[in-house]
C-alpha cells in the first residue's frame, strides 16, 4: 500500500515536471490537409520558423489525403493530449471537423482555421485565409481587360464537385469578367452561356490535361481557360500545345506557387492570383503565443492578401510582374 502511494506520488511529480516544462514553452499544433502538397509543406516551414524564433514548440500533423477528416481529428486529439493550447488547422472537410473543434474549445483550446474556413465559419475562433472569391475576381478582371471586347468562349477547369474554395474561385472569376455569376457564399458553380465547357481537374496536372483535351473536343474555339490552380493550368497548357492552340488561348489561374510563377514568366499562364501560406502560418503561431502568454484570443476573419501576378500588364488593371511573384512565391524557387 505504502509502495503504491509512493509510486503514485512519483508519477504525479513527473507529470508536474512535465507540465511546468510545457508552461514555459507554449505548444502549438498545426494540422494541414496533407503532408505532401507544396502549399502545406511551405505552410509548415513558415510555422516552424516562426515558432523557433519566438520560443514556442510546434507539433505538426496532417490527414493522409485531401478529405481525410478522421486523420485530422486524430491529429487534433493527440496534440491536445500533448499539451497544445492552440490548434491551427486547414480543414479538409469543412463541416465534419466541427464536433472535434467544439470538444477542443471546451477544453480551453483556441482553434484557428488557416487557408479554408469551416462551415459555418464561426466554428473556429478565427480564420486566416485568402479571399478566394477576390482571387477569382482579379484574374477575371485581368482576362476581361486583355480580351478587350473580343467574343469569348470560356472553359473552366474546376476542382471537384461541392468544394467551397472551388466554387468561390470559379464564381469570382466569372464575376470579375462581368458575366452572370453567384455570390461568394454560394457553393454552386455559375454557368453563363459564355462558359462552353466545364470540367473537373481535381487540381491535378494529368487530370487537368485530360479535362482540357475533352473540352477542346467539345468546342475547338475556346479562347479563355480558367483553372482552379497552377498544376491544372500546366496540364491545360500541355493539352493546348499538343493541339497546336497554345498561342491563341489565354490561361488564368490561382495559387502563386513558384512553379506556377515560372509558367507565368514563360507565357504559359497569362495571370495568376498569388496567395500566401507562410503568412497564414506565421500569423497563426503569433496568435498562439499571444494566447499562451496573455490569454487573449483572436477572432473573426483576417484576409492574408492576394496579389495579381502577370507577365504582361494591361491598362486599368493593377498587377505585379513575375519578379515580385518569384520573391513572394512558395515552393522551390
Amino acid at each position, binding site marked *: 500500500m505504502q509502495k503504491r502511494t509512493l509510486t503514485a506520488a512519483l508519477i504525479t511529480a513527473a507529470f508536474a515536471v512535465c507540465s511546468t516544462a510545457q508552461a514555459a514553452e507554449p505548444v502549438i499544433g498545426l494540422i494541414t490537409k496533407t*503532408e*505532401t*502538397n*507544396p502549399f502545406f*509543406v511551405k505552410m509548415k516551414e513558415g510555422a516552424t520558423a516562426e515558432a523557433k524564433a519566438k520560443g514556442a514548440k510546434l507539433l505538426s500533423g496532417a490527414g493522409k*489525403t485531401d478529405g481525410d477528416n478522421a486523420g485530422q481529428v486524430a491529429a487534433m486529439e493527440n496534440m491536445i493530449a500533448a499539451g497544445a493550447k492552440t490548434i491551427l488547422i486547414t480543414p479538409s472537410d469543412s463541416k465534419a471537423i466541427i464536433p472535434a473543434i467544439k470538444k477542443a474549445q471546451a477544453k480551453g483550446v483556441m482553434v484557428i482555421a488557416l487557408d479554408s474556413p469551416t462551415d459555418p465559419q464561426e466554428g473556429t475562433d478565427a480564420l486566416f485565409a485568402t479571399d478566394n472569391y477576390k482571387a477569382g475576381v482579379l484574374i477575371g478582371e485581368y482576362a476581361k481587360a486583355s480580351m478587350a471586347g473580343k467574343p469569348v468562349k470560356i472553359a473552366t477547369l474546376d476542382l*471537384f*464537385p461541392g468544394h467551397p474554395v472551388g466554387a468561390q474561385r470559379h464564381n469570382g472569376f466569372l464575376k470579375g469578367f462581368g458575366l452572370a455569376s453567384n455570390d461568394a457564399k454560394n457553393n454552386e458553380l455559375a454557368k453563363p452561356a459564355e462558359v462552353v*465547357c*466545364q*470540367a*473537373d481537374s481535381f487540381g*491535378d*496536372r*494529368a487530370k487537368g*490535361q*485530360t*479535362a482540357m*483535351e*475533352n*473540352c477542346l*473536343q*467539345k468546342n475547338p474555339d475556346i479562347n479563355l481557360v480558367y483553372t482552379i490552380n497552377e*498544376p491544372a493550368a*500546366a*496540364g491545360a497548357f*500541355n493539352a493546348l500545345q*499538343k493541339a497546336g492552340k497554345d498561342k491563341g488561348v489565354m490561361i488564368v489561374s490561382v495559387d502563386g506557387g513558384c*512553379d506556377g510563377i515560372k509558367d507565368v514568366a514563360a507565357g504559359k499562364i497569362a495571370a495568376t492570383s498569388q496567395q500566401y501560406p507562410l503568412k497564414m502560418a506565421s500569423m497563426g503561431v503569433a496568435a498562439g503565443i499571444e494566447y499562451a502568454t496573455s490569454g487573449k484570443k483572436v477572432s473573426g476573419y483576417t484576409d492574408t492578401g492576394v496579389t495579381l501576378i502577370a507577365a504582361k500588364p494591361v491598362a486599368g488593371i493593377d498587377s505585379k510582374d513575375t519578379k515580385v511573384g518569384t520573391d513572394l512565391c512558395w*515552393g*522551390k524557387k
Partner: protein
Amino acid sequence: MTNKLPPISQLGPFIALLIACVAFGATTDRFFSGENFSLILQQVTVVGVIAIGQTLIILTAGIDLSCGMIMALGSIVMTKLAADMGLPAPLAILAGVGVTALFGLINGLLVTRIKLPPFIVTLGTFNIAFAITQLYSGAQTVTEVPPLMTWLGATFPVGGTNVAYGTILMILLYLGVWFWLRETQSGRHVYAVGNNPEATRLVGIPPEKVLLGVYVLAGVFYGIASLMSVARTGVGDPNAGQTENLDAITAVVLGGTSLFGGRGMILGTLIGAVVVGVLRNGLTLMGVSSVYQVLITGILVIVAVTVDQLSRKGGR
C-alpha cells in the same frame, strides 16, 4: 461446336462499350471523330498499361493495391536520375523500370514465401512506395525531363488522325500478353494457378514460381506505365498514381475477369479501361457533371461482378 459464342461475361464489356458509343454519338455530334477516339486512347494509356499487370495478378486470384504508387515512384526515379544526376535517358528509364520490378519482386516474395494475403501485402507496399516517392522527390514535381522520355506522348498522322506512339505501344503490349496467355505453356500456367494451385502442384508446376513471375512481370508493366505517365504529362509528378489502383481494378472487372481468379481475358481489360475513358469524354462533351461518370462507373462495376458470379454458378 468450335464456333460457340463466348459467354456473356466475355461479351459484356464490348456490349457496354457499344451502348456508350451509340448513346454519345446520338447526343453529341463531336463524339465520332478519329481525333476524339485517339484522345480517349491517349487518356487511358497509363491506367491501361497498369491494368495489364493487375489482370495477371487477378488471374492468379490475387489483387494489387500498390500498382499506382509503384508507377509514381518509377516515374520519379527515372526523371530525377536524368534531371538531377545527368544519367542518360535510356539508363534512367531502365533504372525506373528496375525499381518497379523490384517492388513487384517484394510483393511476390511476401505472397509466396511468407504466404501473406496479396491484399495486405500490397496495402503495405502501397504506403511504402508512396512515402519513398514523397521523400525522394521532396514532394517536388520534376520538370526537366529529357526529350526521349516524352517521345511516347508524341503523335504521328494516320489518315488525318494524330495517333500517339504510347497508344500503339499499349495496344502492342495487350496483343503480346494476349498471345502469351493463350498460346504458350507458361501463359496457361497463370490461369491454372488461379483456378487450382494444388492441382497445378500435383502436375509438377510449382505455383510459387508462377506467382513470383507474375508479380515481377506486373512490376515491369508498372514501370512501362511510369514512362507513359511522364510522356503524357511531360513531368515526373509525385502526386500521380493515387487513384490508379482502383481505376485499374475497375478496368479489369469491367473487362470480365473474375476476381476469384483463373477466368478472364486480357483484351477485355483494355475494353474496360476504354469504357471508363469514353464515359469521361462523352459526358464532358454533353456538359454533364463528372459525378455522373462516377455513378455510372459504379453501376457498371456491380453489373460486371454480378454477371461473373451468375455465370460461375451456371457453369457448375
